[in-house]
């Protein structure tokens, strides 16, 4: 009555083959996908002057435009959460953050300081200065240094303060002016279609 699998001679070799299969699958998944992904180029040229959208839906989104020469790093970008961009020595991220209530908008700058520290413990964010967008929105801006790279950070809450856009642009120290200019240009192009600033 009992299955033949219960007793009999040990089946070490068969079981070791199962073990080898498990190991093979795990290595294939955990090392194979990252290796293949690394081998495939993830840079896509951005269309200059064409608006890019970031946000969860039409009522919670912002739009911005890029100048010529920008490249989208597709593997790290998600139109709902973050665009990761590059132009020459400048690396820039545009990030959507959710705010549960309007009072949290005042915590965006110290929050950004901590978020930057998650990526690099040496990251430093300078004191914020007020920044008014061309549409009249109130934002904050300040200097940023990360791993020997320097640039500018910008934070803009949406008109309803239920979400915000954070821009961080850095480049090697001798190109930090280019990074600051890039952040300023992007901030000037930022629009919140669902509400006028």
């Amino acid at each position, binding site marked *: *009555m*009992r*299955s*033949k*699998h*219960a*007793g009999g001679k*040990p089946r*070490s070799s068969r*079981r*070791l083959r*199962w*073990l080898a299969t*498990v*190991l093979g*699958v*795990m290595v294939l*998944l*955990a*090392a*194979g*996908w*990252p*290796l*293949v*992904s*690394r081998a*495939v*180029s*993830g840079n*896509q040229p951005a269309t200059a002057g064409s608006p890019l959208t970031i946000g969860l839906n039409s009522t919670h989104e912002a739009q911005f435009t890029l100048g010529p020469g920008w490249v*989208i790093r*597709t*593997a*790290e*970008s*998600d*139109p*709902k*959460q973050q665009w990761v961009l590059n132009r020459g020595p400048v690396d820039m991220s545009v*990030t959507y*953050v*959710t*705010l*549960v209530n309007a009072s*949290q*908008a005042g*915590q*965006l700058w*110290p*929050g*950004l300081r*901590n*978020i930057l*520290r*998650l*990526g690099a*413990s040496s990251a430093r964010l300078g004191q914020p200065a007020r920044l008014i967008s061309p549409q009249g929105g109130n934002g904050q801006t300040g200097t940023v240094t990360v791993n020997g790279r320097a640039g500018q950070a910008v934070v803009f809450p949406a008109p309803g303060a239920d979400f*915000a856009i*954070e821009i961080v642009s850095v480049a090697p120290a001798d190109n930090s002016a280019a990074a600051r200019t890039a952040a300023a240009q992007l901030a000037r192009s930022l629009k919140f279609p669902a509400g006028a600033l």
Partner: protein
Amino acid sequence: MTTASGPTPAAAAQREPYVRTVRVTAVVLCVVGAGVLVWAFYPSLIVFPGPTVLAVVLQVPLLLVGFWLFRLFRPLRAPSRTWSAAAVVWGATAATGCALLANEGLTGLWAKGAGVTFASNWSAALSAPLNEELLKLAGVVLIALAAPYAVRGPVDGMIFGALTGLGFQVMENITYSLNAVPLFGATNPAGAVTLSAVVRVGLTSWGSHWAMTAVAGTGIGYLAARGSRRGALPAVGCLVAAMAMHLQFDAPQPPIFLKVLINFVVVLGFYLWLRRGYVARARAVLGEQVSAGVVPRTEAPSLLGRRQRRRRRLQAPPGPVRDEVTARQQTALDDIEREAADAADREN
């Protein structure tokens, strides 16, 4: 029947040389997975120590309740506590750590190949079912290899699958809570962690990883009971079903409560069907053993229920007599579980 003297088949199997190799390999993989997780989330502990501890603490109730409940779901008696814990640890370390690497690679590929908009909607649904279901299932396979006789049939596979999925789910919930902090701009880290935990424990946990891996793990039970040739088809079927459950869970539509409900109903229906067959076979085996005089007729009525067995033990005076009753119950249950593990075995 298993005799009281001499090594049981289970004990003999524990001494097989491959068992040690499997166990050592599994431990190494758990350490590697835990290392990956520490490497990925150590900065959170440094920058947000309080919210990180909170993220862990908020998952403890789910872990404890799930562990208790899933072990209770095994008919007749709970599976070994050690191997149940091993399943959870695998899910929480080796599977989660490796999934972190695998998912990052594959989701990146979707974005590069199909564009960021497609990847934003579909990369999770097309990556996680493949990577995560295989990585979690690897834990059930290793338990079947490392603890011969722990996985005897589909019900055992389902229970160990659920436990492995539980470990994965708990660790994933912690990582989601930590990832929620920057998603909310780190404006209220404790609030972000709590909100994420409430949604993932209160809503999605009802049909998440435990349910998917329970279904996939059932297939390993079929393999253990029927061997590679006759068990392969149901095993593949269970894995594909688990991947389908995972795909619909991560897909952009339908609404999340409906996805959770679908997975919950699927796994509950599957469990009840398997359990009914298991209990019916157990009753039949018990009847045969009573007829053969292996189990005393007076003990048979109390043998298949946890509470009845306990009552029967307590009726015996403490000391050697009670110990003897306990030993008799365990020996009889060993035989019944072996015979009742799978319908195919009863047909042989």
